[in-house]
């Protein structure tokens, strides 16, 4: 029973972590599912948010303001990816890789070094909860409320007139254009907003872990994708409510699974392989079920 007690003990910490990563999962979901724009910018936007926020906090800036600036920086990063794709007709994935790679240098330049410790500075958590800030349940409460607000706002937006037209851009760009929707603008704003979410996740992460690191969040995108897929398997995708809830549910379940596997004895070194294999399996499953050999028809996404 030793395994279970140690897993049980980790549950609150894991929940806190998964709620933070839920921002990134929302940021993965939005371009991928709503805009039909497979986007990798999150992998760079997450550390960008962390580095910007960490540098500002270490420089004495109010942590709330630091988070907001991180959000804006993420937004700009996402807009750049979408712009590169739209203006130069570069494949969405390649555009994302380009931006993500360039962001690594930018992150280093912003911090001026690879790591900034933040233990001695005020964070949004110490400002809100004082001495209780380090309790996992306090973090869960604060981040939980925040993510709830974000989900509610996204849900409302996607049911509003503007949000409906953004969804149309992903569902059928030709139709959207014929209805007078500016496909380019909607794509840029949507992908930008997604990276803003990822960057916000990064900015909260550095404040809970107590340091900003240029290598933080390596592989976060695949984690996010895995969480999204699990979430969608649980909630489904039939309505916009389910689609928006999927990232949060998926993140909560996914990180508990990971934590469980680790306590069972999975070597941390194997974690990325296991995650990758899982995502591959889930993506391949629909085509495995189909009878007949040959190559599966390519999934219809923008290039």
């Amino acid at each position, binding site marked *: 029973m030793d395994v279970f007690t140690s897993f049980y003990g980790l549950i609150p910490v894991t929940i806190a972590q998964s709620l933070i990563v839920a921002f990134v999962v929302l940021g993965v979901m939005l371009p991928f599912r709503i805009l039909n724009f497979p986007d990798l910018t999150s992998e760079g936007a997450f550390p960008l948010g962390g580095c910007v926020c960490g540098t500002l906090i270490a420089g004495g800036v109010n942590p709330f303001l630091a988070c907001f600036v991180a959000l804006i920086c993420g937004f700009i990063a996402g807009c750049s990816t979408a712009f590169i794709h739209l203006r130069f007709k570069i494949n969405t994935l390649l555009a994302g890789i380009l931006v993500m790679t360039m962001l690594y240098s930018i992150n280093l330049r912003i911090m001026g070094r690879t790591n900034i410790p933040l233990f001695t500075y005020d964070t949004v958590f110490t400002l809100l909860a004082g001495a209780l800030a380090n309790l996992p349940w306090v973090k869960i409460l604060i981040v939980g409320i925040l993510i709830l607000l974000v989900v509610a706002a996204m849900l409302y937006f996607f049911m509003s007139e503007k949000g409906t*037209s953004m969804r149309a851009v992903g569902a059928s760009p030709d139709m959207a*254009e014929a*209805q*007078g929707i500016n496909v380019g603008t909607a794509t840029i704003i949507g992908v930008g907003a997604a990276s803003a979410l990822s960057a916000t996740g990064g900015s909260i992460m550095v404040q809970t872990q107590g340091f900003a690191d240029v290598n933080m969040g390596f592989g976060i995108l695949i984690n996010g994708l895995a969480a999204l897929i699990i979430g969608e398997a649980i909630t489904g995708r039939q309505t916009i409510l389910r689609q928006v809830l999927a990232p949060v549910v998926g993140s909560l379940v996914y990180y508990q699974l990971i934590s469980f596997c680790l306590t069972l004895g999975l070597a941390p070194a194997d974690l990325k392989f296991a995650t990758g294999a899982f995502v591959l399996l889930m993506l391949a499953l629909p085509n495995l079920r189909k009878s007949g050999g040959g190559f599966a028809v390519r999934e219809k996404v923008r290039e």
Partner: protein
Amino acid sequence: MTKNMLSVTGGTKIFYRGTQDERRALDGLNVNLAPADFCIVIGSNGAGKSSFLNAVSGKLPLDSGRISIDGQDVTRLNAHRRAQFIARVFQDPMIGTAPTMTIGENMLLAELRGKRRGFSFGLTSARRARYSEQLAELNLGLEKRLDMPVGLLSGGQRQSLSLVMAVSTQPKLLLLDEHTAALDPRTAKLVMDTTVRAVEELKLTTLMVTHNMEHAINYGNRIVMMDAGKVLVEIGPEEKRGITVSDLIDRFHTKSDAIALQGN
């Protein structure tokens, strides 16, 4: 002289200009439509019918020439800006609607065509009631399925929905791009009947591309026959009454032979 609802003057579009593959999709095209004209566009493959429609909708920017709608020059407007004047039904039922979105949401998108979209809630109960009413006229039962994703509908149902979406907002110009070509004959007839009823009732200025000679004879008050990016034959309202398929084919051949004789 009456004011034109649509006027295309000297519309020219050349693909691969200056290369061996140079192709004149539109070559000095001139078309004028009066308000409430229902114009059928026919011509063989590659005659420029689709290019014509795409040029009007703004999807294909002209190299030279002018396009104006209801007296307003739209030559330089993007497709999404022109959408305020134009509603379009595509040939492919998959393109004209957003398949993963519900019938109600698709109706909402169409209602706001070319209008400012705000942050207010989209599918209000007032709108739902109005959409149900509009869809009930189709007699397809769609009015009871506002929350069903459009992707679950048959091709005919989707084209009918596209049509309602297009006409319900009183566009200045309705573009129909072989919108019944992908349907089985019975459904095609149904969609065509709905089209004619809507166009006549609402007095919509309409451009309809078709390959179907019967459609060209039976519907509309004008025929434009295209060849090599130009208008080869234009048949006006007086002449169109009582015209037959063989008349049409004769006119086409006489004209193209005449051109051939001139060594053009």
